[in-house]
């Protein structure tokens, strides 16, 4: 981020400040990193419920007779599998198979799709998708990002919050589904998704409705023993699940196969951007792979860009890393050659010139205790 670019503010900026949040720059936005503390907010989401401002995220609406075929050509997952009301995690690749963004695509009707993209990639995604439109495509694209706010309600008590704020229990979108409602200010989208590993939903609405909804939801969340949460807890929650963050774990230089996201790439469907490169990479063998690691002894938390060593050689750097509040241990993800990718492989993380042992582990780092 250049220092001269003013940070953007979500419609809830003043409310965050009023509620005592600490604001930090993130992806060009001035966002709350925490209200009371990352660990407290993290635990609230694991045990009861939390609400996050995700208004910085982007929303595109792609519609028309050719929308399905067009998006199937642009995105990696098979969008023809979606019935109206269903969504899927998918990826937008460059022609070399590198990841431009990871996103969720919903089919809101037979001929209309709702895409939720990362804040830092809104402009790049829009340009890249639009550049693949041809005059033969019967497709309309609309960027709703600037006038759409978003809230993520996450945690085992998210259903109670939904029932309270909507006044009924039918308004809870099940996992990977979407409910669209028209209001006087514009559409509201209720999406059964999240970035925490907990039950919950993401709620996108017209910017002018955001403050009233946020206050109402914060009250409902607190009544369930939860708290408003910042991006700090969002990051520790997603990393405990092993979910990648674009910019840390995904980049235009690496493919979704290297990132372990092959499940969301349908190589059997018709051609899509990046497919040839992925097939070639698959045939040649992956040069490296994103693995999860856990610090094995007392160590400072691993953080992005710390060097990673294996067998006394530096082989890469930490992509995402933090102290896991649920496990009380340092956790992270890093790209390593396949020879060092096996579960149980010993790695070393270099922190301020000293090396601390870590071990390659299975994802997710955190599993909900069975009741």
């Amino acid at each position, binding site marked *: 981020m250049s220092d001269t670019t003013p940070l953007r503010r979500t419609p809830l900026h003043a409310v965050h400040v009023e509620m005592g949040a600490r604001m930090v720059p993130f992806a060009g936005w001035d966002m709350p*990193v925490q209200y009371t503390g990352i660990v407290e907010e993290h635990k609230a989401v694991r045990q009861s419920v939390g609400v996050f401002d995700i208004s910085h995220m982007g929303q595109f609406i792609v519609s028309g007779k050719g929308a399905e075929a067009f998006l199937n050509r642009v995105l990696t997952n098979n969008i023809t599998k979606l019935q109206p009301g269903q969504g899927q995690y998918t990826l937008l690749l460059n022609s070399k198979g590198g990841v431009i963004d990871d996103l969720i695509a919903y089919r809101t009707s037979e001929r209309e799709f709702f895409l939720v993209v990362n804040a830092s990639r809104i402009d790049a995604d829009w340009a890249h998708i639009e550049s693949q439109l041809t005059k033969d495509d019967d497709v309309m694209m609309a960027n709703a990002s600037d006038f759409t706010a978003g809230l993520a309600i996450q945690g085992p008590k998210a259903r109670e919050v939904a029932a309270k704020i909507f006044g009924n229990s039918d308004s809870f979108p099940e996992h990977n589904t979407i409910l669209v409602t028209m209001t006087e200010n514009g559409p509201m989208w209720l999406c059964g998704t999240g970035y925490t590993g907990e039950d919950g939903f993401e709620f996108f609405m017209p910017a002018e409705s955001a403050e009233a909804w946020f206050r109402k939801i914060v009250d409902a969340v607190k009544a369930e023993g939860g708290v408003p949460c910042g991006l700090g807890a969002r990051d520790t929650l997603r990393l405990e699940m092993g979910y990648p963050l674009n910019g840390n774990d995904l980049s235009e230089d690496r493919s979704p196969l290297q990132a372990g996201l092959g499940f969301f790439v349908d190589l059997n469907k018709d051609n899509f951007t990046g497919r040839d490169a992925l097939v070639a990479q698959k045939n040649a063998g992956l040069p490296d792979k994103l693995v999860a690691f856990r610090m094995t002894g*007392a160590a*400072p938390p691993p953080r992005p860009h710390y060097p990673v060593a294996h067998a006394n050689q530096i082989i890469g750097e930490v992509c995402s890393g933090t102290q896991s*509040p649920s496990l009380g241990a340092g956790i992270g993800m890093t790209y390593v050659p396949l020879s060092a990718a096996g579960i149980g492989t010993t790695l070393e993380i270099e922190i*301020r010139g000293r090396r601390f042992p870590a071990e390659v582990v299975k994802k997710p780092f955190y599993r909900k205790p069975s009741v």
Partner: protein
Amino acid sequence: MSNVPDNLRYRDSHEWIDPMQDPAPVGITDHAQAELTDVVFVDPPKLGTQVSAGQQVCVIESVKAASDIYAPVSGEIVTINEALSSDPGLLNRDPYLGGWIFKIKTSNAAQADALMNAEAYRKHIG
């Protein structure tokens, strides 16, 4: 309101020192621990090192960030608070007593007088 004991001296980077003790314990203030929240690791200074006032001597890690800790005065690091290695949360719960980080054998007693007193530090954190 954060707690600022009258008997201590303070650096603008939020370390405290108790100059009435010899060697003098050093820690971070209640204000600093509240800002950091959730200390998860203390990377202690090396025992026996000679440090100068203002020198970075160790690192405190919260979930979100690593923060440098600076020596309030010049001298030798003579004791490390071992309790912090198994319970770094002491820094949050008890920043002025159980949460001291190291003790320093001061080589220049006048340096502590030049640090902020409680009243000046209260103004500093406003």
